[in-house]
């Protein structure tokens, strides 16, 4: 019990590349009932000024989940995955994600605190395209519930 607050500021090396495909964008849109042609029709996306079909606003949860997994795999942090719940989530986009993007995520531990027997960890996922361009910053609060 009690995450080590000295691990605030820890970061992890960039992930492997996640390549965004048209098929995955359509799958994700389907799962949300989102029928926008900008996520399905490359011609419509190009007419709107995008290089290819664009992803719905929360699509990068896929990459963000990889960041959470990176934390969960750190033995020094010792997260108990079975007691972990998602407290909040934010995405700040520099530009829309489009099919063909090759993304890497770098994960940072921005904060650790403890309150009422629960631990709270704030994770920042910096998502970059090849060449280093920042595409999106994801911020998640993970809550590790104390054992009753």
């Amino acid at each position, binding site marked *: 019990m009690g995450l080590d607050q000295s691990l605030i500021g820890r970061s992890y090396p960039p992930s492997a590349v996640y390549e965004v495909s048209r098929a995955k964008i359509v799958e994700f849109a389907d*799962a949300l009932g989102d029928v926008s042609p900008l996520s399905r029709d490359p011609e419509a996306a190009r007419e709107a000024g995008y290089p290819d079909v664009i992803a*719905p606003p929360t699509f990068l949860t896929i990459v963000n989940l990889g960041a959470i997994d990176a934390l969960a795999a750190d033995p020094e942090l010792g997260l108990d995955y079975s007691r972990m719940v998602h407290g909040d*989530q*934010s995405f700040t986009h520099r530009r829309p994600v489009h099919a063909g993007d090759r993304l890497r995520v770098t994960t940072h531990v921005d904060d650790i605190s403890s309150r009422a027997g629960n631990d709270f960890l704030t994770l920042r996922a910096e998502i970059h395209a090849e060449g280093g361009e920042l595409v999106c910053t994801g911020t998640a609060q993970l809550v590790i519930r104390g054992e009753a």
Partner: protein
Amino acid sequence: MYRYRTAGDPGGSVSEVATGDELPPLRARVTRADLVRYAGASLDFNPIHYSDRIATEVGLPGVIAHGMLTMGLAGRVVSEWIGDAGRVLSCTSRFTRPVVVPDDDHGAVIEFSGTVTAVDDGVATVSITAKCEGKPVLGKARATVRVD
């Protein structure tokens, strides 16, 4: 699923967006099948989203929807209103109450509404509410949207 759009005129001129504008509401029905589909699309295979046995073992009343599914539907309310997901600059939400999804044909119904709370320098801030059985399931859900 998700077929209960009840009102609205997406595709209006974005230059007319003003504080106090209401977004077209969304009534989304989420069944176990939808959770399976979202799990595959998002790669979030946490068993609390498909196994009653594991969900109850960790203290939940039963299988619950992915918080990110609810947030993704909230994002859809915003992107359908503005007509272009690429205009959504940021989105944020707290996950305040789990959406329990029973193993039947009816699932759970989540009702979304949204209001423009500010327009500043070509960027609108939208506040979103999401309710299941009359109770809020997202907290402080907001998005910023480019409207210039």
